[in-house]
């Protein structure tokens, strides 16, 4: 199978999945239930993606847990995204050097 065909199929399917609802859906949703679901979806998606995957994100559960705790503390005090992300990475890295 040619590499070009594989990449074309991957890219094509992925694009259509993104494009169709975003481009074709024009109505304002009126239902209070649907609006509520859409309001909660972003937080629910991010939370489901983060937990428990974050604990396996650094090859070592201990460094990942330390990074997670640091991220949660800094996020609780509403620090910017970049600061939280880099601090979590630094905390995991430093913990890895110590243990």
């Amino acid at each position: 199978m040619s590499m070009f065909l594989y990449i074309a199929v991957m890219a094509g399917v992925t694009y259509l999945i993104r494009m169709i609802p975003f481009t074709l859906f024009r109505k304002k949703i009126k239902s209070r239930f649907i609006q509520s679901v859409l309001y909660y979806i972003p937080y629910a998606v991010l939370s489901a993606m983060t937990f428990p995957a974050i604990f396996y994100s650094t090859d070592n559960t201990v460094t990942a847990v330390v990074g997670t705790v640091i991220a949660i503390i800094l996020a609780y005090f509403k620090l910017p995204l970049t600061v939280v992300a880099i601090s979590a990475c630094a905390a995991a890295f430093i913990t890895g050097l110590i243990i």
Partner: protein
Amino acid sequence: MQKPFIKGLSHGIPICLGYFSVSFGFGILAVKSGLQAIDAILISLTNLTSAGQAAGVGIIAAAGTLIEMAATQFVINLRYSLMGLTLSQKLSDKFTTIHRLIASFGITDEIFAVAVSQKEKLVPTYMYGLILISASGWVGGTAAGAIAGLALPASLTAAMGIMLYGMFIAIIIPAARSCKKDLIVICLAAAFSAVFKYLLPMVSFGFAIIISALLAAVIGAILFPINVAETEGEEE
């Protein structure tokens, strides 16, 4: 007032850094799986998605069929449809069909998360700034990983794996702090996701995320329906 394009670029900096580290790993994985560096870069440029690309490289390495490739991408990436639908409710009138066709290419978990948390309606130039810087991190990281990845110390590349999740935490924790309903939905989604991971490992990553998030959001919508007038006020 900041120009929307510049604002998009600056909001995308953490995504760019996070993507660089994650796609660095993808570049290494692709080359290890027998792909040329240029193929890996082309995949990142045309797909812009982590889990789908990793699965795609696995299928290429195993010489799988195109049907298998299409079905796998469909399941893993189906969540983007849900995100596109949610974002479609936040677009300003400047988002004509052509802008929608272009910007939809850049709907990823992280770009979605940042875009949907904006108070004001989304304009095309903001989305283009956000997508451009994020995609350059993604493609640049892939190139660096594919070409030079094996040279970095493993302890550093391992720690970089947490960056994107750190960014997600920076988005959900402030919401959970200021609103109990959001906190409950966030905890429910994490709990469902853990159930899939530990008790139902046969369910693929993409499906597990979709089902966990939908269940948590539907329970949230039934228990605590939002005040519609309130959110319309927020969007203005």
